[in-house]
């Protein structure tokens, strides 16, 4: 029997993969993919918890919303990456330290 715990473990694994990509990758696109993974982990959780929701399909609806939002975020993110590339001629985040004091 597959319980909610299994879903949560899988989702945590996906989330950690995403987190790792966000923190460690030296390419902005890979970071964006990492963010996508983390969102997907969250979506998986929505769907899994949706089973215990009293109102029907609440979780699925939220998941759909999140997917749409993620798509929009990816579009904006890619645009930013493009702009950054034009400005710095690089998309390695290590080389972009304008936030420093």
């Amino acid at each position, binding site marked *: 029997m597959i319980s909610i715990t299994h879903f949560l473990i899988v989702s945590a694994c996906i989330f950690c993969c995403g987190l790792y990509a966000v*923190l460690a990758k030296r390419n902005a696109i890979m970071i964006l993919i990492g963010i996508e993974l983390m969102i997907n982990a969250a979506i998986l959780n929505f769907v899994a918890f949706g089973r215990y929701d009293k109102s029907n399909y609440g979780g699925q609806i939220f998941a759909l919303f999140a997917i749409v939002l993620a798509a929009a975020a990816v579009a904006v993110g890619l645009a930013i990456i493009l702009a950054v590339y034009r400005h710095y001629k690089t998309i390695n985040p290590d080389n972009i330290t304008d*936030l*420093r004091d």
Partner: protein
Amino acid sequence: MGELLHISPILASILVMLLPLFAFIIQASLGEKATSGNISLIAILISFILSATIVLPGIWNKPPQYNTYDWFTIGTKTFTIGILLNNLTVLMQLVVCLIAVPVHIYSRAYMKGDPGIARYWTFLSLFCFAMLGLTISKNLLMLYIFWELVGFASYLLIGFWYTRDAATAANKKAFIINRVGDIGFLIGIACLYSLFGTLDIIEILGEGGLFSQGIVDQQSSLMTLAGLGFFLGAMAKSAQFPLHIWLPDAMEGPTSVSSLIHAATMVAAGVFLLSTLFPLFNDTVLLFIAIIGTITALMAAYFALEQHDIKKVLAYSTISQLGYMMVAIGIGAWDAAMFHLTTHAFFKCLLFLGAGAVIHEMNTIKKHDCQTIDPQDLRNMGGLRKYMPKTFILMSIASFALAGFPLTSGFLSKDAIIISSFEWAIHQGGLYHIIPIVLVVVSILTAFYIGRLIFKTFFGELRINTTANSLLHEAPKTMLWPMFFLGIGCLFFCFSPSPISYHLAPILDGFSVTYSFSEVHSLHIIIPVTLTLTALISWWIAYRWYVLDQHPVHSYNLDIEQNSNRKVAVFDFIPYHLANSLIIFSRWNYHFDKYIIDGSVNAIVKFTLRTSQIASWIDTYIVDAIVIGISNLSKRIANFSAWFDKYIIDGLVNTIAQTTYYFGHLLRWVQNGRLQNYLGFALTMVLIGIIYLILR
């Protein structure tokens, strides 16, 4: 005259004090222009006349007068200033005037041509103001103020030639050592204030005053502390062991200054203070005073024996005589102390002025021959009697007085002290006898060193080769007249109608002190005779050594045969046996002299000289070295505390600042502008939070 001018003694004494102050202000505002010194001279002259004609006759042997003026109020206590005129204060004031006038006149010639002479007169007037004010102060706070002002004036005058390093070192030393005494004085004042709640001398010590009401236990430790505090003040000012070391150095000042300040007036202020406050002292303090006085008298007389600097001999002599006065106070005979203070002021001042004249002449030789001699060194002098006979006579009179020969003033006052001290010792018994015996020894030593000074200076031949003989001459009249005046003051009739008995002296009558001990009549004959005889012997030895050059230290022998042959020729017409007996007597005398007296005397004297050298060495390398050691130590402490301040205390402050800065720096690294790092940190913090929540 007081009635004539309708001036009360109080007003007159205020004028006496203020006139030199006005002279000081005028001189100071005129600056370099006032070189003649007329203003100062006129001021002190009028002071002298007022003091002698109005103040003294109006007060002497009459009830004391005083006036009090409110000065300021602290809280509810009012501090006053006031004029106190009684026998003691008017006498002291007159003595100061009496000495200051001749010194002023003398200075006109002595300081002539000095580039800083305007300054000299300014400082001298300041000193006279402070000293005259000191004498008549009614309030201890006021007395303290003048007490320190005389020290300040003395500082200025010792360092008068401020380009000389020795002078500036000496005046600093003098001031700081006097400061030690001032602290004692201040503590004494604080003690009295907390005991009596007032600092008015009359309110404390006057008839029916707080002291006589017996509200204070005289034996209490606070009273002892007060007494020792005041004595510490007097010790520094009156150059008592071990605070005497500033006085020999103070001789760097002009000689006229030494004669006024460091011989006659300021150094006597300590004796004056103790006499004023005499009833306050309990037996412990008095004994301490007597012991310190004895040590000082003996030690300084020893040091004087082998000094070569004419002014240093006189300086040590002053210290020694001040020791006498302290002993007199310690045994309760403060009238004798004041008597000796008065007579000493005259003859010591005269000795200094004479020494100044001698130094003046030696300087003439120095300038003429361009020699590098020390004009103050006794070893260079000799035979000056021929060139300056009047100075010689005057100085001899003064030295007779110092040595205590009959017919002089010194004879009377010294006898007064020594006889009283014997009587005191008999009354106390036991070990107390040491003090009068030491005083007699000091008296012998005194006669010796002053004889040596006179003989070395005026007898024999000049000990340096010079072509300036023709330039040597008697001191100018402006210098001689003051000395002549002081010379008269060295004779007995100025102080007592009888040349041998001090009991008739009006000064002693004026104080009418009741002694704690009874009179011993036999002493009044034995002591003067002993003292005179020993003084004569001392002079005789000094004469033989320093004039006839039979100094035992030099191996020189008189050929007795030659001498006696010459004597035979002289006595040719006298019957042979008489001559023969004379020769035999002379020979016997000589042998007796040579082997018995000379031998023993020489042994004593050699021993004395040796101990003198040792003592002098001790003074330089131990007592003075302790002072220097203390000053070095305080410099060390100062350097250490500066180091401590810089590296420990400030270091601590800086360390705190550095630590804060370091932590700031550490945290700053977090802000590196990399988004991923920011996220990482955020995640770390979240994780820490989660772990905390789990473990809680």
